[in-house]
Structures are given as C-alpha cells and as structure tokens.
C-alpha cells in the first residue's frame, strides 16, 4: 500500500521551483540576498525525498513503482502527453542524491560566493537547476524528462558562464551547451522512434511494450542507439566529453553539484531508466560498453597530467562516468546505479574540498600549492578521505561500487559476452590509473613543501559554512558504500535492481582490485611525493605520448578546426554569399529585366512605331508620352493597375482556351 509521502513526491521539485521564482522576484531585498530561500526550499525537498526514500525501500523488493499523472497536452488523435511523476527505487535513490548534494552546495555557496556581484542570480539559478534535475528524475514520460534535461542544460550554461566578463568562461558555457545539444538531438529522435512505436511517451508503458515484444527488434536498437547519443552528450562520454573539463570555468560549487554529482549522471540515469529498451538490443549494449570503456581510459590518462586541480577532478568525473556507463553495457545495472550513489558523495566532497583549497590559495594550479595539510586540517582530512574513496580503498564508499562493477564485467564476460573482457580489462587499468592520479593529486596539494607565494598568500581553513558540508559529505564518502556490501545483506541491490536480485561476489577479484589500487597509489606517490608536477618525458621516446595527452588527443583541435570554425566562418559566409549573390540576384534580375523591357517597349515599339504611326496621323497623340516613368513612379495605383491588367489578360487567355 502506498500512502502519504510517495503520493506527495511531486512536491519535491515544486519547492525549488517556488524558491527560484521568489529569489528572482525579490531575492535582492532579502537579508540573505536570496540564499536563505533556496536553502529552505532544498531542506524541504530533502526532508520529503528522505521520507519518499524510506517509504520506497520499506515497500520491499517487489515494489514496481508508484505513478500519477495528469494530461498535459493533446496534439493529435491518440497523441497525448502527460505531466506526471513516477517513484521507484531508482528514482528514490536519485532524489536523495540530488536534494542532499544540492542542499550541501547551497550552504557551501553562502561562504564560497560571499560578496559575488551576482550572488542573488547565482542562487536563483541553483534553484532552477535543482528543480529541473528533480523533474528529470521524477518524470514518468520521456518528453517531460526532456524538459528537465534541457532545463539543467540551460542552467549549466548560465552557471558555467557565471563570470562572463572573461571570454574564456562564456566560451566554455557555449561549448557545453552546444556539445550536449548535439547529443540531445539524438535523444529527441530516440523519443520519436519510441513514441511512434509504442504510441506513448510513458516510460513504463514503453518498457512494457518492449517486454511484450510489441516492438520490432530493429526499432528497439535504433531507439536505444539514439537515446544513448543523449547520454553521450550529457554524461560527457567519448567523443563528446570535451565540454566537461572546460565547464570547470564555472564556480566550484557548481562543478560539484552539476558537473560531478547530478547533471552529468543524467545520461547514466537515462540509460538506467530506459534499461528495458537497452537490454533488448545486444548491439546497443555493446555500444554502451565500448563507449564507456574508451571514455574511462582516455579520461584517466588525462587526469594524470593536469596541473589544474579542478581539471584532475573533471577528467576523473569523465572517467568514473565511463565506469557507470560501461557497467550498464555489461548488465551490471545495480552496480552502476550504486556507483552513481557513491560517486555523488565522494566527488561532491572532492570538488567542494578543491573549492576550499582554491578559496585559500587563490589559484587552481597544484604547482602553486603543496603543504596545505597543516594549514587546512578539515579540508585536507576530508579531501584525503574523498581521494581514497575515489581510488577504491576499502572500506570507503567508492571501493564497494567499483568492485561490484568489476565483478559485473567479469561475469558478463564469462557468460558468453566477449565485450565483457574488454570492459573488465579497461576497468582494471582504470582502477590502477585512478589510484595513481589520486596519489599525485594528494601529494601535490597537501604534502611536501609549500609552493605558493608565502608572502602574499596565507592559506587558512575555510569558514564553517564551507567545512560543514565537507564533513557531512565525508561521512557519506566513508559509510555511503556500506549499504552495498556484497552478500545476502546487500541493501542497495534490494532498492535498485533490474529483473531478479543478483549477488555478484568474487573474493579473488576483490583482492585483485585492492592490489591494483594499492599499486597505483604507490606508484603515484613514489613519483610525485617530492612535489614534481609531471614526469619529464618530453625528451624521451615517450615524448609523443605526453604531447598527445597535453593536447587532449587533439580532439578539441579537430572539432574546432574541422567543424566549428568551418561552419561558423566558411559555410555560413558561403551560404550568405549564395543568398545575396545568387538567390537574391535572381529577384533583382527579374526586376531589372522588367524595367528594361519597359524601356524597350517605350523606346523601341511605343515611340518609334505606335507613337510614330500616331504622330503620322497627328502629333497630338504625343500626350501618351511619359510612360517611361510608369516603371519607377512609386505610385501604388500604377503597380496595382499593372497587376490587375495582367490578371485580366491572363484570365482572358484562360477563358479563351477553356471555352
């Protein structure tokens, strides 16, 4: 039986929607300049989300979701769109993640953004973002999900470009919007395919139609591949991942909320939400697995060489999103969602910690940090724990989900899916690399000798408004994974699962992955503990590798020189040239010819012949002159007269032919 909390789940996104309106309308007049409204709204959303969450998990493993909707739009016979919400284990877990991280980021931002010239607008946008994200999570149909999906995109655009006085920031904002929009077109087309195939946008009904075999396999594959394009854009998968590192131009709390914990997992969430469709198509699953694997590897390599602390975390996010995506590609549904859960806690923690560090030393570059451990005890302690969670050390959160994913890939491989081996290998390599860059990041930032300008920079611990969220998230980065400890008591698997409950567990793999993490961390620590930011490879035989990484595999270059600039410059100009010099010239030529014909008629026929004949009879008929002006008179009556004359003439011809 479903009662109280779940039935009111639709209120969860409504709170931040209200706060968005209130902050925009009168935020500047409030004592807290609007932040307090957002915090209040998010606290309400979190409370209700937790109530919904506990009620949902209290329903037990055979709870298939609660759904309510009203009709939103009818746009044709049988073509209906609903406005509704759906609560199940997946949605409940996401609600908690989104509202909790959003609340933490709100509180943190009161400290981090203090004194910002667009403080109030910033909080309005945070509310708008949270509303859109919660709407995306709760939507019971694909088009409503798209509304939230695009909404978070536009908020992300506005927040990345928050400090738009710098052109680099607004460039990053545009890049993020356009790159993800390319994927969104695929997503939209995927929605179309499913709508016409199943006759509805409703996710549950579409899933049922797929389950019942009512949709042709080719159509399902097409839909899954198209939907996945949306995920590639939003969740920053290869080859559309290029926007996420640039998105770090936004304020750091925004990076934590939008570009680590919530919005970027929307693509993973989409695949999980539509998993019936994906699971029905071997081709789509393989695509998901391969793209995820490529992404986790290339991003992990890039994270190794960044000097900018936020960029390390950004590439790490891309890499971890690849983990989740690849997990979905190998049937590790629960493990992937579990990784969304743990990653949200430790990555939000890491970003907020990075923000705290940047706040203290006024730079993003690790080459100007070092030795901060004693200056910022809370920040460094929580950050180190977050780092260990990311690196996959037990008993921290990231270990449990990562391990479950690796086991999932192994099981997929041993159950006759060769792609599983590729994913398995990629995950192991990535696990090693991850621990390696975490060690580097921790060493360069908190250990060793200070490299900042000690005369001008005096690092100090951040205010309570910033450290409190760090502590809360730190607790979750430690213990958040314990709900998914493998075995019969695996709670998370009961909350979120696809099909039957599944208990993947393998002691050798667990030990192996711990060993890899330790090895990676050890290697990273050994190389970087003395404060070197990079290994000098430039002169060596491996120089090309370094250059390749330094240039981000030249992808930005290729996109800019191969696509963006040619379209914006050559193609656009050529089109405009065609417009002005060809198409429009036809119009002008027609006018020109008409005028010339008029001249010729006057000078060649009218005057010498007709008028000449008339003149031959009597010069008085010369009154008819001045017709030349006819064509340039500007008198509307004359133009109209010509029109009606021609029409009459043509009508006459028509009648003549007909009768």
């Amino acid at each position, binding site marked *: 039986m479903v009662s109280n909390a779940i039935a009111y789940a639709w209120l969860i996104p409504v709170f931040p929607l209200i706060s968005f309106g209130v902050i925009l309308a009168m935020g500047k007049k409030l004592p807290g300049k609007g932040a307090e409204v957002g915090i209040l709204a998010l606290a309400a959303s979190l409370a209700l989300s937790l109530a919904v969450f506990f009620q949902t998990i209290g329903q037990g493993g055979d709870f298939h979701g609660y759904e309510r909707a009203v009709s939103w739009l009818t746009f044709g016979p*049988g073509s209906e769109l609903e406005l509704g919400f759906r609560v199940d284990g997946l949605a409940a877990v996401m609600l908690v993640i989104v509202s909790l991280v959003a609340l933490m980021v709100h509180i943190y931002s009161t400290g981090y953004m203090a004194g910002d010239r667009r403080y109030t607008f910033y909080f309005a946008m945070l509310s708008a973002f949270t509303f859109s994200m919660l709407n995306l999570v709760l939507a019971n149909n694909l088009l409503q999900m798209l*509304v939230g999906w*695009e909404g978070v995109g536009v908020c992300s655009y506005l927040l990345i470009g928050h400090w738009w006085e710098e052109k680099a920031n607004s460039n990053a904002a545009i890049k993020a919007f356009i790159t993800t929009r390319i994927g969104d077109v695929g997503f939209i087309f995927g929605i179309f395919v499913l709508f*016409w195939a199943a006759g509805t946008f409703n996710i549950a009904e579409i899933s049922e139609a797929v389950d019942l075999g009512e949709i042709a396999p080719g159509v399902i594959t097409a839909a899954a591949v198209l939907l996945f394009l949306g995920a590639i854009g939003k969740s920053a998968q290869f080859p559309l991942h290029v926007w996420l590192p640039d998105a770090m131009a936004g304020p750091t709390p925004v990076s934590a909320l939008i570009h680590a914990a919530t919005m970027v997992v929307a693509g993973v969430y989409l695949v999980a939400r539509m998993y019936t469709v994906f699971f029905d198509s071997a081709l789509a699953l393989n695509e998901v697995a391969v793209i995820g694997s490529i992404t986790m590897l290339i991003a992990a390599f890039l994270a190794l060489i960044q000097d900018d602390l936020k960029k390390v975390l950004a590439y790490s996010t891309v890499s971890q999103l690849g983990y989740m995506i690849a997990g979905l590609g190998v049937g590790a549904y629960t493990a992937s969602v579990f990784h969304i859960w743990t990653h949200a806690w430790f990555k939000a923690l890491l970003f907020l910690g990075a923000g705290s560090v940047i706040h203290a030393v006024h730079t993003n570059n690790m080459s100007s940090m070092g030795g901060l451990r004693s200056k910022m005890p809370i920040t460094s302690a929580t950050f180190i724990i977050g780092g260990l969670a990311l690196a996959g050390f037990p008993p921290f959160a990231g270990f449990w989900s990562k391990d479950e994913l690796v086991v999932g890939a192994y099981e997929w491989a041993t159950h006759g899916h060769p792609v599983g081996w590729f994913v398995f290998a990629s995950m192991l390599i990535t696990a090693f690399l991850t621990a390696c860059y975490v060690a580097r990041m921790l060493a360069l930032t908190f250990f060793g000798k200070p490299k900042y300008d000690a005369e001008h920079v005096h690092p100090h611990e951040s205010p309570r408004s910033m450290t409190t969220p760090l502590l809360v998230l730190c607790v979750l980065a430690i213990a958040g994974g314990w709900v998914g400890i493998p075995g019969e008591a695996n709670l998370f698997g009961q909350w979120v699962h696809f099909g039957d409950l599944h208990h993947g567990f393998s002691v050798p793999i667990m030990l192996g992955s711990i060993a890899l993490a330790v090895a990676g961390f050890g290697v990273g620590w050994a190389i970087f503990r003395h404060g070197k930011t990079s290994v000098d490879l430039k002169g060596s035989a491996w120089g090309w590798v370094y250059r390749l990484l330094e240039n981000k595999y030249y992808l930005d270059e290729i996109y800019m020189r191969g696509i963006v600039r040619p379209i914006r410059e050559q193609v656009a100009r050529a089109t*405009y040239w065609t417009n002005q010099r060809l198409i429009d010239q036809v119009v002008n030529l027609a006018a020109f010819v008409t005028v010339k014909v008029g001249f010729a008629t006057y000078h060649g026929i009218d005057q010498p012949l007709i008028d000449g004949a008339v003149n031959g009879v009597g010069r008085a008929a010369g009154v008819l002159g001045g017709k030349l002006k006819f064509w340039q008179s500007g008198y509307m009556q004359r133009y109209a007269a010509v029109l009606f004359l021609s029409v009459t003439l043509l009508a006459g011809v028509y009648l003549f032919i007909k009768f």
Partner: protein
Amino acid sequence: MNWVDEWGITLAVFLPVAGALAILLTPKAMEGVIKALALVFTGAALVVGLIVAKAFQIGEAGMQFQMNRSWIPAINADYHVGIDGISLPLVVLSLLVTFLCVIYCYWHLPEPVNAKAFLSLTLLLETGMTGSFIALDLVLFFVFWELVLVPMYFMIGVWGTERRQYASIKFFLYTLFGSMFMLLGFLALYFQSEPNTFDMLELQQAGVLNLPVGLAHLIFGGLALGFAIKVPLWPFHTWLPDAHTEAPTVGSVLLAAVLLKMGTYGFLRIAIPILPDAAMTFAPVIGILSAIAIVYGALNCLAQTDLKRMIAFSSVGHMGFVMLGIATMTPEGFNAAIFGMVAHGVITGMLFFLSGSIKERFHTRQIADLGGLSLKMPRMAGLLAFASIASLGLPGLAGFWGEVIALLSAYQPHPDLSLPIFRTAMVVGGIGTVLTAGYFLWMLQRVNLGTLSEKWRKKSLPDVQPLEYLAWVPLLALVVVLGLYPRLIMDATDSSVTALVEMLPGGDASIATTDR
C-alpha cells in the same frame, strides 16, 4: 450575447479601420488625441477578440461566429466570415500584437515623426491582417490580403532606415508577384466550380470542384507560390531580410508576428482543404524546401553582423519548422504548425522590439559595436537572453512545442507520403536546432557578455522603461504560459485540424501507431 455570434469578429476586424478614420479626422498637431484614439480602438478590438475567444466552443471542429451576406452578386462573392480553431489563435495574436505596438508607439515613434500617418496606417494594417484570418470567401480574402501591402509598404518606405526605398518596393512587388498567381488560382477555382463560387467552405465540399489532375496541380502551384512568398519559404525569402531590417520597429514586429503567418495560414485554410490531392503531391517538395530553410536560415544567421538582420534570418528557419509541420499532412504536424506560428509571433515579435529599443539607445545595430550590454542595462540584456533562449526552443518555453512536434510528425508523416524524404527532413531539422542554438548563444556572447566598450561607459543610457515593459510584459508572459500550458492553443486547434486531415486522401486516416 447574440451580437457576438454574428457581429463579433466583424467588429474586431473593422474597429481599427474606424479608428484609422477617426485619426484621419483629427488634426495632425493633436498627437495626444491621435495616440489615444489608436489605443482605444486597438484596445477595443482586442477586447472584442477576447470576448469572441471566450465564447468560442473548444472542441468543435467547424466554423463558428459565421456571417454570410451577399456582397458582389455579379460574381457571386459574399461577405462570408467565420473562425475555427485554426484561425482563432491567429486572430487573437494579431489583435494583441497590434495593441502592444500602439503602446510601444507611446514610448517611441520612428523618424520622421508623424503620429497621424503612422498610427492610421498601423490600424489599417490591423484590419487587413485580422480580416485575412476570418475571410471565408476568396475575393474577400484577397481584398484583405492586398490591403495589408499598402500600409506596410509605406511603413517601410517612409519610416525605414537607409535602404528603405529598395526594401519597400521589393516587399511590395515580390508579394504582389505572388498574389498574382494566387489570384489566378482563385479565378480558376471559381470557373471550375459548379455552381461557380468563391466560397471556401463550398469549394471544400465534394463534387463542387471538377478538376483534371493537371489543372489541380497548376492551381495548387499558383496558390502555393503566393503563400510561399509570404511565409517566406526558401528560396522565395529574400525580400524578408531587407524588409525586416529596414522597417521601423513596429513594422518589423508586425511583419514577424503576423504578416508571415498569412502565408502559412493560406496553406491550411485554402490550398490544402480545397485541393487535398494536389497538396499530397506537393507535400514532399514543401517538406524538402522547409528542411533547407531551417538549416539555410540558421547558417545565414551565423554570417550576420547586424543584430536585426540576424533576427530576420532566424524567421526563415523558424517558419521552416512551421512549413515542415504542414508538409507532413498529419494532425500532429498541423497542430505543431499553428502553435509554431503563434510562438514565433510572440518570441520573434519580442526580439524585434528588443533590437529596436537597443538601436534607439546605441544608434547601431552592429553586433560588433555592442558587448557588455548586461553591465550597462541588465534588464534589457536579461530580456534579450530570455527571448533568445525561448527562440532556440528551450522546453518549458513557447518555442519548444511547435518545433519538437513538427519534427515528431516528420518522423511519421501521412501514410501516403515518402518516409525517407520526411525522415531526412527531420534529421536536417534536428541539425538546424543545434545551429540555431549556436547562433543565438554566439550573438548573446557578443552583445550581452564581455566588457563594455569605452564609448558607452560614460554615456547615460536608460535601461528598460515603464512603457516598454507595458508593451512587452504580455508577450513575455505568453512565452512562459504557452511553454508551460500549451493546451491554451492546441485544445482549440486540435479538433479543427483533425477535421482538416479527414479531408485528405485516405479519409479519416489517423496515423497507425505501429512502425512501418
């Protein structure tokens, strides 16, 4: 209210002309009275229009508020007017936008200032525009259609900017060129019908028209050319950037918000219902041209250096989505088209208001000369960003529904139409949405963001003024309301559109919900 049933729409259409006459009788020097008259008459017309809208029976497919009186018996032309779900949104849109334009004129009149001439022409224009949307007789329609040309010609030619002469003559002659073919089509319909009639509803009835296929195609071609130039559909669009760019602000707003819709409306009201078979033959061609228009318009926008001209070119793309919806010959496509017309009217009308007000302040439309607008006038910049984001089709705002449903319908067009052609058009349209986002965001970056140039920093330039807010708030509100509550329009259009589709070959061919 019985008078509403019979006289309501006639009153709404002719009140402005009465206002124009009243203005003509007022001495030129009494500018205050002239403006007040314009405001009162357009306001009254809007109120009558809203009363009609309130009394409109939602869900009824046929014509309402009909009035049919003999007009020119010699050629059997009647004063036959009426509205259904297709025309109602456009009538209300025209009345609203003209009223807002008059409010805007309180803030600013274009040089050379002549309230009497300018406002009387605006009111005359309103009668022509709204009249086109209620006429159910081809001769009456033609009269309203041509009536629109004259005031707009003078608006551009007298109150326009540098190249106004060229732009106004081009606008006038190009449209006239199209209407000539349209009129020929009307005459052919008249002579081919039995009994001879100009009545649109009679012409739609089976057995009234007796046309060989070739002639039907010829007539449809003529009508389509006339309408396509007005829309304007690629490649007949080149009058539009010139006319839009040179016209005074109010002229551009009315052009974008209403005039263009007369073309798309012509397809839905005249060409398709009277000649459904020919329409099916031509639909793929229209679909292809629409897809070209979407991408072509967007690419041209990327090449523009002039803010207003960029917005003008954006209309080519947006009207491409409307035409694509029409070309699918499905209820979904038609609904999307009408929604798209209104949304484009509201959003692009707003964009032209903004570009006009920016020009008034900076005396330049060059994108490169602006920059940092958000620092100088944050409210103006905010509105520009809002309208641009609405125009690029953000879900939750008005621009979304028309475009996404047009694309949705292109995936599954009428069963008799070619799937490959329309799905290709859909993909091309999808690419167009990316380019559209690209040029709008790029424009916003160059106009709104960055730092303020030295020459503006010291000047005192006012942010949005109260009168501007008065003129704009209704449009801004509509952008949000239509975005969140699209039924406001589609509930009215759906039944009429469904009835229209039933006239198409295949009878009440609602689309099968299985994939073919």
